[in-house]
C-alpha cells in the first residue's frame, strides 16, 4: 500500500510548491525592478537630463517577458500542486471509505456522512487551491517589497508597517461579530428549506385541510426572520466595509505626507517617492489580507479535522485465517450473542442458534425486534458486544473477512443498483463473469424476459440517471447477482413494500430456485412465504421467543400464531 495520506502527498508534490514560491518571487522582483526603473527615469527627467527612450525601453521589454513567463509558471505550479494534492486526498478518502467499519457508517448515517464529505472535500480543495497559494504569494510579496522599500527609505517603511496593526485589530473585531450572524443566517436558511420540504411532503394533508394560508404563514415567518437578521448583518457588514476602507486609506495618506517630508529633507528623490507610491498598493493589499486568512484558516481547520477524523476511524477488523470447510460443521452458529450500539442502546440479548448445511431458516418478528441486526452480524458488518458468531466452526474474528464473505450472498431489502448497465450490475456478483453467465443468472432470476423488452436490453443504464426500475425488478436483478455469485450461504431480506401478485410470484419463484442446494436465512415480512422453512425463529424485543416449524409454532398458539392470524385477516380484506 502506497503512502497516499495527506502528509504523504504534500511531501510528494512539495517541489511544485517550492517552484511556485520561486516564480512568485521572480514576478514580484520584476515588478519591483520595473518600479525602480521608473523611479530612475523620473529622477533623470527632473534633473533635466535627456532620456534616450531606446536605452530605457530595452530592459523594460526584457522585464515584460520575464514577468509574463513567471506569471505563467506561477499559475501553472499553483494549479498543478493543488490538483495533485486534491487527487491524492480524494483517492485516500475513497480507499478509507471501503475499509471503514460498517457500524460507523450505519451510526453516522450515510446521508449525513456524504453531506459532510462533500462539503469538507470542497473546503479542502479551496484550502489547497486558494488559501495556501495566496498566503505563500502574499508572504513572498511582503518580504520582497519591504526589502526594496527599505532601500528607498527605512523610516518610511517603518511608518508604513506601524500603521497597519490597527487595521488587523479592527478588522478582526468586525469579522468575529459577522461570523456569529452568518451562522445564524445559515440556520435560518436550513429552517426555511426544512419547512418547505415539510409542506411539500404533507401536501395531501395540506390540500384536504385547506392549509394553504397557514403553511404560507409558516414560510413567511421564517423569511421575515431572515430579513431581520440580514438587516443587522448588513449594517455591521457595512460598518466593517467602510472601516476597512478607512483603515486602508489613512496609512496611505500618512505615507504620502511622510514621503513628501522625506523628499523635502533630501532623504529621498522624487523618483523614489513615486516608486514608493506605486509599490505601496502591492504591500497594502497582502497586509490587508492577513486578517481574512486568520478567519479562513479557522474555518478550514474544522473541515480538515473532520476529514482527518474519518481517515483516523478504525478499519474493519479482519482475521488472517482462511479455513478449510468441513462438511459436518454447523454452517453458522451464534452463541449467546448480545449487541448494542455505541450509544448504549441494546438491540440483541442472548441470541443462540445454529444453522446446518442446506437448512432453510426464517427470522420473523415486528420491526425493531432485532432480526435485521442478526443479519448484519452474519454479514460481518457488526461485531457482537458479547458472545460468539461462528462460521464453519470458526469465530468470525479469526476469519479473513474477504474469504468469509465469499461464502455469503445477500439479497437485501433496499436493493442498490450502481450506476452502469444492468449487465454490469449483475456481473458485480462474480469477477470476470461473461455475458452468457450474466444472462443465465437473469433467466434463473426471472428477469431475463423483462430485460429483453428494454430497447437497450442488458446495456440499459440504471441508477439515478438511468431507467427507472420498479422495486420488483430491482429485487430480481439483485437475486440474479446473488445467483451469479454462487455462494453456499444465502442471506435474504424480503422486501416489505407490496408488489403486485404477478411480480410477487416471479420473485418467489426466483427465490425458490436460488435457495436450492444452499443454506438460506431469510428475514420474512410475509409469513405466507416461509411455511416450508425448516426452522422459524420468532424475534421480539431482541430475544428469540419461539422457534420451530410452521406447523409446530401454529400448534403452540403463541406469538407466531398471533402474527399469522393477523396477517391472514389483513390479506382477506
Amino acid at each position, binding site marked *: 500500500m502506497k503512502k497516499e495520506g495527506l502528509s504523504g502527498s504534500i511531501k510528494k508534490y512539495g517541489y511544485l510548491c517550492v517552484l511556485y514560491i520561486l516564480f512568485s518571487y521572480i514576478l514580484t522582483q520584476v515588478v519591483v525592478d520595473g518600479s525602480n526603473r521608473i523611479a530612475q527615469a523620473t529622477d533623470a527627467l527632473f534633473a533635466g537630463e535627456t532620456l534616450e527612450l531606446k536605452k530605457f525601453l530595452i530592459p523594460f521589454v526584457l522585464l515584460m517577458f520575464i514577468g509574463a513567463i513567471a*506569471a505563467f509558471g506561477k499559475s501553472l505550479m499553483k*494549479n498543478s500542486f493543488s490538483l495533485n494534492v486534491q487527487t491524492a486526498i480524494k483517492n485516500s478518502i475513497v480507499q478509507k*471509505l471501503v475499509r471503514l467499519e460498517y457500524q460507523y457508517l450505519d451510526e453516522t448515517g450515510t446521508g449525513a456522512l456524504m453531506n459532510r464529505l462533500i462539503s469538507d472535500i470542497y473546503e479542502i480543495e479551496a484550502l489547497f487551491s486558494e488559501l495556501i497559494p495566496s498566503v505563500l504569494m502574499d508572504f513572498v510579496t511582503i518580504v520582497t517589497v519591504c526589502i526594496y522599500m527599505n532601500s528607498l527609505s527605512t523610516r518610511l517603511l517603518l511608518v508604513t508597517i506601524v500603521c497597519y496593526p490597527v487595521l488587523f485589530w479592527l478588522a478582526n473585531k468586525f469579522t468575529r461579530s459577522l461570523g456569529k450572524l452568518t451562522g445564524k443566517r445559515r440556520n435560518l436558511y436550513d429552517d426555511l428549506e426544512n419547512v418547505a420540504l415539510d409542506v*411539500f411532503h404533507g401536501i395531501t394533508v395540506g390540500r*384536504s385541510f385547506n392549509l394553504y394560508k397557514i403553511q404560507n404563514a*409558516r414560510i413567511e415567518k421564517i423569511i421575515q426572520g431572515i430579513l431581520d437578521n440580514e438587516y443587522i448583518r448588513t449594517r455591521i457588514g457595512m460598518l466593517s466595509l467602510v472601516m476597512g476602507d478607512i483603515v486602508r486609506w489613512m496609512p496611505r495618506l500618512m505615507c504620502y505626507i511622510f514621503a513628501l517630508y522625506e523628499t523635502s529633507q533630501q532623504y529621498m528623490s522624487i523618483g523614489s517617492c513615486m516608486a514608493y507610491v506605486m509599490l505601496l498598493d502591492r504591500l497594502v493589499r497582502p497586509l490587508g489580507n492577513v486578517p481574512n486568512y486568520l478567519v479562513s484558516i479557522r474555518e478550514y481547520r474544522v473541515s480538515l479535522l473532520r476529514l482527518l477524523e474519518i481517515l483516523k476511524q478504525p478499519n474493519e477488523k479482519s482475521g488472517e485465517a482462511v479455513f478449510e470447510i468441513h462438511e459436518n460443521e454447523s454452517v453458522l452458529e451464534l452463541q449467546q450473542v448480545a449487541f448494542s450500539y455505541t450509544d448504549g442502546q441494546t438491540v440483541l440479548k442472548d441470541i443462540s442458534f445454529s444453522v446446518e448445511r442446506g437448512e432453510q431458516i426464517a427470522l420473523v418478528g415486528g420491526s425493531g425486534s432485532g432480526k435485521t441486526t442478526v443479519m448484519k452480524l452474519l454479514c460481518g458488518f457488526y461485531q457482537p458486544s458479547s458472545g460468539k458468531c461462528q462460521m464453519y466452526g470458526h469465530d468470525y474474528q479469526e476469519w479473513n473477512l474477504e474469504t468469509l464473505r465469499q461464502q455469503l450472498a*445477500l439479497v437485501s431489502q433496499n436493493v442498490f443498483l450502481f450506476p452502469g448497465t444492468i449487465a454490469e450490475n449483475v456481473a458485480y456478483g462474480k469477477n470476470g463473469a461473461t455475458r452468457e453467465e450474466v444472462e443465465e443468472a437473469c433467466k434463473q432470476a426471472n428477469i431475463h424476459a423483462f430485460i429483453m423488452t428494454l430497447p437497450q436490453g442488458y446495456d440499459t443504464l440504471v441508477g439515478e440517471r438511468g431507467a427507472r426500475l420498479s422495486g420488483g425488478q430491482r429485487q430480481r436483478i439483485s437475486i440474479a447477482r446473488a445467483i451469479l455469485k454462487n455462494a453456499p450461504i444465502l442471506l435474504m431480506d424480503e422486501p416489505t413494500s407490496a408488489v403486485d401478485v404477478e411480480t410477487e410470484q416471479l420473485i418467489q419463484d426466483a427465490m425458490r430456485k436460488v435457495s436450492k442446494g444452499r443454506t438460506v436465512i431469510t428475514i420474512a415480512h410475509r409469513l405466507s412465504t416461509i411455511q416450508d422453512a425448516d426452522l422459524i425463529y420468532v424475534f421480539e424485543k431482541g430475544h428469540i421467543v419461539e422457534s420451530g416449524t410452521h406447523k409446530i409454532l401454529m400448534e403452540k398458539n403463541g406469538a407466531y400464531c398471533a402474527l399469522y392470524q393477523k396477517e391472514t385477516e*389483513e390479506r382477506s380484506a
Partner: protein
Amino acid sequence: MGYSDVLIEQCGANATQEQQSNRIKWRILWRLLHMMKSGFWKYLVAIIAMSVALSAFDTVTAFLLKDIMARISWEQGLMFDGLGKNVLLCVLAGLCCLAIYGVGYIVYTMEAKRGGANLQRVMYSKAMRLPFMYYDTTHSGEFMSKVMYDSGRAQGIYGSRFRRILMPCLMVSCYLVPMVYLNWQVTLCLFGASASLLLLNTMFVVPMQSMSQKLSGTHSSLTERLSNLLAGMEQVKIFGLQKLMVDEYVDANERFRKGQRSMNMLSACLDGLNQGFELLGSMVFIALGIFFVSKDVTTVENLAAIYVLYGSMSWNLLQVGIYIPSMASYLANAERVFAFLDSEEEAEYVEMHSNTKDVVKGERGEDSCIRMEHVSFSYDGENNILDDFSVDIPKGKCVALKGESGKGKSTIAKLLLGFYSVTAGEMYLNGKTYDNYTREQIRNQIGYVPQEPYLYNVSIAENIRYGKPDATLEEIIEAAQKANAHDFIMRQEEGYDTNVGERGNHLSGGEKQRIAIARAILKNAPILLLDEATSALDNESERLVNEALERLMQDRTTIVIAHRVSTLNRADAIIEL
C-alpha cells in the same frame, strides 16, 4: 485571487447548464427587476450612488497625491504651505464619499435581500398551488434541488450579478472624467490598452468555458461515485467490490486530473499574457509620460494621479468581462424560474364534463351525500384506473371500498377530495355536481385520515389545530381525548407543545394515527374519508386506534378504504373494486 481564477470560478458556476449562451436575455432581466416593484428604484439609485461615491473617493486620493507630487518640485520653504488644509479637505471629502457609499450599501443590500426573499416567497407559494399531478409524479428532493437551485441563482442576480456588471461600467466612466481632465492624450492610450486586454481575455472565455463545462461534468460524477459507494456499501462489502470500486474511482479521478491539466495550462497562459500586458501598460505609460512631459503637454504630478486612477479603472473594466458571461448563465436559471412560476395552478373549481349544472336528486332523494356516476379516470390519458364506476353514498352511512392495490381505491379518495378532475362521468356532493363548489368548499366538507398520517414538523397541538385553525386549546384537548391521544401526549415531556420532529419521527405509527384522527375530529366535517393503514400495529395501539375511529365515524357519512376484516364488518355497504 488571480484573474484567471475568477474566470474559472465563474465558468465553473456556469457549467451546470447543458446549453450555454453568452447572450443576455434582457426580457428576463427586466422581468426579474420588475418583480422588485418600487424597491427597484431605490436599488438602482443605491448602485449609482455607490459607484459615484467609490470612484470619487479614489479621485480625491489621487488629487491629494497630485498636490503632494507637485510640491516636491517647489522651493524648500513653500513645500508644506497649505498642505494641512488640503489634507483636511481631502479627508473630509473622502469620509463624505465613504458615508454615501455606506448608506448606498445598506439600501442596495436590503433591497436585494428583499427582492430575493420575495422571489423565494413567490416560489414557495407557487409550489403549494400546483395541480396535484405534480406532487404525485415529482420527487420532493428533485423539486427542492432543481427549482430551488434555479431560484437561488436567480436571487444571485439581485444580490451581486447585476451590480457586478453595472457598477464597474459606471465606475469606469466616473474614473475617465478626472483622467481626461488631467491629460486626455495619456488617458486615451491607457484606455486603449485596457480595452484590448479586455478583448484578449474575452477571447479566452469561450474555450475555457467549454472546457470547464466538460470538467464539471466529470467532477460531479466523481461526487456521485462517492455517494453511490456509500449508499451501496452493503453490496460492496458482501460482494467484495472494494478494490473494483476504488480502482474505478481512482481512474475517474485520474481522468479529471488530466482534463484539469489542460485547463490549468490555458489559465496559466492567460495569467502570463495578463501579466505581460500589465507591464506593457506601465511601459506605455512611462514612454508616453516621458514624451509628453518633455513636450510640456503634462506634468509628472498629473501622470502620478492618472497612474493611480488607471489601476482602479483597468481592474473594473476586467470585471465587466468576467461577469457578463456569468450573468447570461444566471439569467438562464431565472428563465427556468419564470417558466415554473408561469406553470398552471390548481384551478379553483373541479372540471366536469357534462354541461348540466342541475341539482340532481339521489336515488333516495335528498339523502344522497356523495354520488359518482359512470366515472372514468386515468392519470396519463391512456390507461383507465377507473372505468365507468358508479356509487351512491347516502347520508350517515358507512361504505367500505375493498380491492387489491392498483384497482383505484386511493384514486377514488383523490377524486373525492378534488385532487383530480374525472376524465368522464359526474360526481355529486349533497345533490349538486362537484363544479358547483370551489375545491376549498369541497374539502371543507370532508375530514380525511390518510393511510400514512402525515404530521408537520410543529408541535402536537399545532398539528391537531390544523383541523380547525381557530380552535382553542380546550377544543384541541377534547379532540385528542376523543382520539385516545390525550394520555400519550401528556406523557411527552412538553405535553401538547412537544415538537413531533421531521415527518412526525419522534412518535410511533399508532400515535401518529391517533393525532391524525384528532385532527379530523376537530375539523368536524360531515363526511369522513378514511384510508386505513396497512402497516401492522401492536394489539394495544390497534385497539386504541380502532376505538378512536369508531368515535370519529359516529353520525358521519364515512367512506373507508378498508384493509381489515373488522372494518368491513362494521360497514353498511361494501364495494369491491
